[in-house]
Structures are given as structure tokens and as C-alpha cells.
């Protein structure tokens, strides 16, 4: 009875996920597509939970559904109004539509080929190697990793390289965001009810981020989930029309942005100087070093996600913006 019920639940979940994905792609209303995408992300998080992967479920719920949704909605809000339907009847548009139809079919075929190749590779990998090789290797070395959560052990110790490069990717994206120029102006100050929610929600979110960071050593959690939660606090503050959303200013912001990569590199290089392999922590220090790196990574991730939501340089950091303001003031005099 119980397994039967779960089977029905899984079937419904799977059906809803595919249905939501389809609906979110098929709709012509961008805003509706984004909202369907957020619902899709939430159900995907439930699916990860059903697969007994709470770490991924937390990350999916926080980043995939929550923050990506906020980013996409902000992007929809900013894009110019679509052309009126009357403007679409010229021949140029029709030939463009024909081309896009061809492109769409080519892309569909290529995607199908890619999916087939991936499925074949996965099947091959599953059938040729014993299933429990990797989990066993992790379990055997977990004691020396400095943490007892196997996911954190892989992310921050066994495969720390990958995480370092992920943080470098985030840093690169911040550079891209900064090149977009000044951020959009903030929103109107919120009314008393929303402001009342923000007043207690933000401290709770900050507390939760700290908890997720700390608990990552022995249970699901870690820098990415904590960073996303911290960024969510900033997003809520911004939506409530607050002028200060928790981002430091000027030079301090640059330090926070680069903290993840630089602390990671510093630890790695120091270990190299001490005659150990790059990022090969001594077991006695591993726990503390991982916590240090994760704290820095959390701050960088939170700043990156929040800057992505702002969509540009916050006014106070841009040297150019400051110069512009000065020029304006001079010309006004």
C-alpha cells in the first residue's frame, strides 16, 4: 500500500514536472512562462527530495526556483514592450519566421541527438563499472576529509578544484554584470504590511544562512545554499524599496565579490608552500579550512546573486558613476 502510494505520487510528480516544463516553453506570454518555470523549479526540488538528495533539493529550491525566478521576473520587467501584432505582417517578418522554423527543427534534431548520446553514455557507464565504486571510495576517505557530510566532503575536499572553478565562473559573471553599467533604480518604498514582513523575515533569513553554512559540515547545507538564502534577504530588501540592501560599498564590495576565489587560492597556495599538494588539506586542519573557505564562498555567492538581481553596478561602487554625478553637480552650479 505504502509503496503503491509513493509510486502514484512519483508518477504525478513526474507528469507535473514535464507538463510544467512544456507549458512554460509553449506559452507566448513571457511573464506567465517565468511563473510556470518557478513552479517547475519547486516541483523539481521535491523530485530531488524524493531521490534522497536533500542537498540538491535545497539548492534547486533556493537558486533554481527562488532566485532564478526573481532574476527572470526582473529581466521581464525591464525588457521593452513587444511589438504590436499589426506590425508583424510584412514580408521580412514572414521570411524571418520561415528561417526560425528551419532553425527550430535543426535545433530540435541536434538536441535529440545530444540527448541520445548522453543517454547512451550514461547507460554505458552504468553497465560497465560497478555501481558502488564511487560511494565506497568516498565513505572510506570521509574520516580524513574534515567533515561528515559526504556531499560537502566531495565539493570542498575531494573535488575542491571543481568548486574553485565554479566560484571563478561566478566571479566572471560579476565582471559581466559590472560591465552593464549602473544598476536600475530601486523600487518605491513598500507599504506597512510588506515592510512589516521584511522587518522580521530578513533577520530570519540571515540566521538561516548562518545555520545552513554551519550545518553543511555534517548535514545537507553548505556555501551555495547559504549564499542563496543570504542573497534572498537582499532581494527582499530591494523589493521593499530599501535604499540599503546589505551590500558593502566601494572597495569592500570588491573584496566580498572576490573573497571566495581569493581565500580558496590563498589556502591552496599556502598548502603548496608547506609542501602539500594544491588544496590537499592536512586532515587535522581540514574541518577549519573548509569552514573558512565556505564562509568566504558564501559571501561571494550572495554578493554575486544580489548583483545579478540589481543588473549592474550599485551606484556607490562605480567610479564612473561617481565621476558622472560630480560632473552633473558642477554643471548645475
Amino acid at each position, binding site marked *: 500500500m505504502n509503496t503503491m502510494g509513493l509510486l502514484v505520487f512519483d508518477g504525478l510528480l513526474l507528469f507535473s514536472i514535464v507538463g510544467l516544463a512544456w507549458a512554460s516553453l509553449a506559452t507566448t506570454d513571457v511573464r506567465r512562462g517565468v511563473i510556470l518555470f518557478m513552479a517547475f523549479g519547486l516541483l523539481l526540488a521535491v523530485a530531488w527530495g524524493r531521490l534522497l538528495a536533500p542537498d540538491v533539493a535545497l539548492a534547486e529550491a533556493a537558486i533554481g526556483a527562488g532566485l532564478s525566478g526573481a532574476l527572470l521576473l526582473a529581466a521581464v520587467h525591464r525588457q521593452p514592450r513587444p511589438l504590436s501584432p499589426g506590425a508583424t505582417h510584412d514580408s521580412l517578418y514572414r521570411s524571418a519566421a520561415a528561417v526560425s522554423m528551419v532553425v527550430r527543427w535543426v535545433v530540435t534534431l541536434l538536441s535529440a541527438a545530444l540527448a541520445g548520446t548522453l543517454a547512451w553514455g550514461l547507460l554505458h557507464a552504468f553497465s560497465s563499472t560497478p555501481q558502488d565504486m564511487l560511494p565506497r571510495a568516498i565513505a572510506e576517505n570521509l574520516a580524513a576529509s574534515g567533515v561528515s557530510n559526504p556531499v560537502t566532503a566531495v565539493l570542498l575536499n575531494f573535488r575542491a578544484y571543481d568548486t574553485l572553478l565554479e566560484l571563478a565562473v561566478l566571479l566572471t559573471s560579476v565582471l559581466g554584470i559590472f560591465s552593464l553599467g549602473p544598476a536600475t533604480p530601486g523600487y518605491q518604498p513598500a507599504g506597512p*504590511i*510588506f515592510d512589516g*514582513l521584511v522587518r522580521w523575515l530578513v533577520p530570519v533569513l540571515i540566521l538561516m544562512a548562518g545555520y545552513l553554512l554551519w550545518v553543511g559540515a555534517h548535514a545537507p547545507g553548505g556555501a551555495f545554499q547559504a549564499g542563496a538564502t543570504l542573497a534572498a534577504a537582499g532581494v527582499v530588501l530591494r523589493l521593499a524599496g530599501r535604499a540599503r540592501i546589505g551590500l558593502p560599498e566601494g572597495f569592500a564590495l570588491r573584496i566580498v565579490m572576490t573573497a571566495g576565489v581569493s581565500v580558496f587560492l590563498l589556502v591552496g597556495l599556502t598548502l603548496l608552500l608547506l609542501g602539500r599538494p594544491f588544496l590537499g588539506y592536512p586532515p587535522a586542519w581540514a574541518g577549519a579550512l573548509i569552514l573558512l573557505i565556505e564562509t568566504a564562498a558564501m559571501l561571494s555567492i550572495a554578493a554575486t546573486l544580489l548583483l545579478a538581481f540589481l543588473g549592474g553596478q550599485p551606484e556607490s561602487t562605480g567610479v564612473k558613476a561617481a565621476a558622472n554625478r560630480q560632473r552633473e553637480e558642477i554643471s548645475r552650479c
Partner: protein
Amino acid sequence: MINILSSILILAGVFFYLAGSIGLLRLPDLYSRLHALTKADNLGLGLLMAGLALHSQDLFTMLKLLLIWLAVLAASATSAHLIARQARRQETGS
């Protein structure tokens, strides 16, 4: 006994969710739809959480469930208020 009680609570919660969903799909305008939806969030989730809390028989889990309910209450009440206010503003055209 506790099992029966928790089942009744969970079923009652599911009933409110069902009623809320039907209301969301069938009711004519935004305000009455919001009204139906908040019933599902507030009462439905509350009953569901109460049923699950009885089922868990663990004080820490119960407190966590209570906290989830309170957080959802605050969030859903605020978002319903924001949606309704925005709709009202568009109606009056101010």
C-alpha cells in the same frame, strides 16, 4: 487513536486545499479567488501541519512544523494583500 486523529486532521487539510483549488479555478474575479486561495494556505496547511505534528510525536519536529506554518501564514497574507492592493489600484486607475 493518535493515528486516527492525525488522519482526520490531514484529510480535513486536504479538503481545504481541494476547496481552495476549485475556488481558484471557478470563482469569477480576482478578489474571491484570492479569498479561496488564502483559505487553502491558512487553514489547509494548518490542519495538515497539525496532523503531521501529531504523527511525528517529537517536540523538535512539531516546533519546526509550527514554524513552517507561521512563515507561510505571514508570506501568504502579505502576498495576497499586495496582489489585491495592486488590482484595486489598477481598477481605480490611480
